[in-house]
């Protein structure tokens, strides 16, 4: 009797890249819904459009390279990249900004390197940074959270705004947008106010009370679920948040008027979603355990530096890209000690 030959192992564990990615997508749902609740339909419109574009570009590139389109789309990584990109840009971002951002994310950052698994840089963050430096005006218009917004947009108005890039008649950007807490902190500190003065503004609240922080908490929940499901390991999120908190704490203790508190840094902007969903992108992060810790620490510190002294209010995206750049070198120098080798790495 003859048999099929194939290589070991001969038991099938039943996991796949697609499943991994879909778990990350599930984990994003609560946070995304919370953001929609607080910032209006724009969030959802962003997500849907960006995912659509991302999948479209992915299919286009794969088809251009004469590779199997459906098999590639099945891994859901384009959906994830599109989704994360959408969460990074403000709601009500014009559709062409979404288009350009996803194009850079999927075409340039991902497929020019060969697609899934080969990109040295985080695609979603490349897309976001490209639009951020190219269209800073559109990217700095964050609608005020619903609670303190003077006017709110219906779903159709939101869609219309996104598609045309113009607000419905009678509305004014200056009326519905407002600097995000990080922006506000930065602007006001530049203008000579102290941290305490800034935090008296209505969008600031103590721990977990404002909308921003609620969204952050729900992303945190998703992140913890991912940890529990072994989709991500603790190294990056923990080291990133810890280092951010520590460096913020040091400066804060040093001068609480000039430097915001660690809690503020950890819970505003993209810190939480960055720690659990973005910095953990396995493809572009470091891959050795020690490398991952250093990777997280690097992101934490760079985020703080860019937020505090840099030209852009939130540093997470840049910090992630900068550390992506360092990741291969980190991997090179943080190889674990191989079994049976002495400490210096040679047996």
């Amino acid at each position, binding site marked *: 009797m003859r048999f099929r030959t194939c290589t070991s192992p001969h038991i099938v564990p039943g996991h796949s890249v697609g499943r991994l990615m879909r778990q990350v997508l599930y984990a994003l749902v609560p946070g995304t819904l919370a953001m929609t609740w607080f910032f209006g339909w724009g969030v959802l419109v962003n997500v849907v459009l960006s995912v659509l574009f991302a999948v479209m570009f992915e299919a286009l590139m794969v088809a251009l390279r004469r590779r199997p389109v459906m098999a590639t789309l099945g891994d859901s990584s384009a959906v994830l990249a599109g989704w994360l990109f959408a969460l990074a840009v403000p709601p009500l971002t014009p559709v062409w900004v979404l288009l*350009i951002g996803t194009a850079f994310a999927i075409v*340039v950052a991902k497929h020019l390197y060969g697609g899934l698994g080969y990109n040295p840089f985080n695609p979603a963050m490349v897309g976001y940074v*490209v639009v951020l*430096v*190219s269209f800073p005006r559109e990217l700095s218009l964050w609608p005020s959270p619903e609670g303190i917004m003077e006017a709110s947009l219906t779903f159709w108005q939101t869609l219309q705004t996104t598609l045309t890039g113009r607000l419905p008649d009678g509305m004014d950007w200056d009326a519905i947008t407002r600097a995000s807490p990080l922006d506000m902190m930065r602007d006001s500190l530049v203008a000579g106010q102290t941290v305490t003065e800034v935090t008296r503004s209505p969008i600031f609240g103590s721990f977990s009370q404002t909308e921003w922080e609620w969204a952050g908490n729900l992303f945190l929940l998703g992140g913890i679920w991912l940890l529990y499901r072994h989709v991500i390991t603790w190294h990056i999120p923990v080291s990133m948040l810890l280092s951010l908190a520590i460096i913020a704490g040091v400066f804060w203790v040093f001068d609480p008027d000039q430097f915001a508190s660690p809690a503020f840094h950890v819970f505003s902007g993209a810190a939480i979603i960055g720690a659990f969903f973005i910095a953990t992108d396995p493809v572009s992060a470091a891959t050795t355990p020690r490398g991952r810790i250093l990777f997280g620490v690097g992101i934490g510190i760079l985020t703080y530096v860019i937020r505090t002294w840099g030209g852009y209010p939130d540093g997470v995206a840049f910090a992630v890209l900068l550390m992506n750049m360092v990741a291969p070198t980190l991997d090179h120098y943080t190889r674990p000690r191989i079994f049976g080798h002495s400490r210096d790495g040679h047996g």
Partner: protein
Amino acid sequence: MITSSYGDIIREGLWTNNPGLVQLLGLCPLLAISGTVVNALGLGLATIATLVISNTLVSLLREHVRPEIRIPVYVLIIASAVTAIELVMNAWFHGLFLVLGIFIPLIVTNCAIIGRAEAFASRNSVPRAALDGLAMGVGFTGVLVAIGALREIVGQGSLLDNAHLLFGEWGRGLRIEIFPQEHGFLLALLPPGAFLAMGLLIAVKNLIDARLEARPIPTATPEPKPAQP
């Protein structure tokens, strides 16, 4: 070294061994000064002049230079040529001179120039060397202008902006507006845009080469040179 025909020299400089796209030399000005077509053209012309002068002189003097001072002598020749050109530009194209800034003196270290002096001019006769300088220079300028055009169009929606810096007052009329500046894609003008444009251009060249090669007529491709002198 096998002496190549004049046709080969031209083809090499313009395409097969283009200093910018193939040898990857002279990248600094190529990326720094390609924000607009006019800047690109200005620097390109200065580079062509330097290349022709330095190639000619190096070829003239090639027998008299000893190895231990070869590089200093070439560098001296190039530096003198560049300084002279710099002074002339400062006097007659002052606006452009200011825009190009440090990159005019830096033509001295444009690797393409010393590379040609070493690799070609020091082994070939004067007319060949001069032609090679011209071809390489034009090839270089071509790439420079191509990137300049790409970045200018995408970045600020115009072509030949500020042409007066190069052509005098009548040049102001040369500006072509494709779309209003505020719709420009800023990335193209920023440093990353320069790299991306260059990468794109190289890919396009590779694509064209692949197409040419796929054509049935077998064309003898000359030996590609190593990327570094």
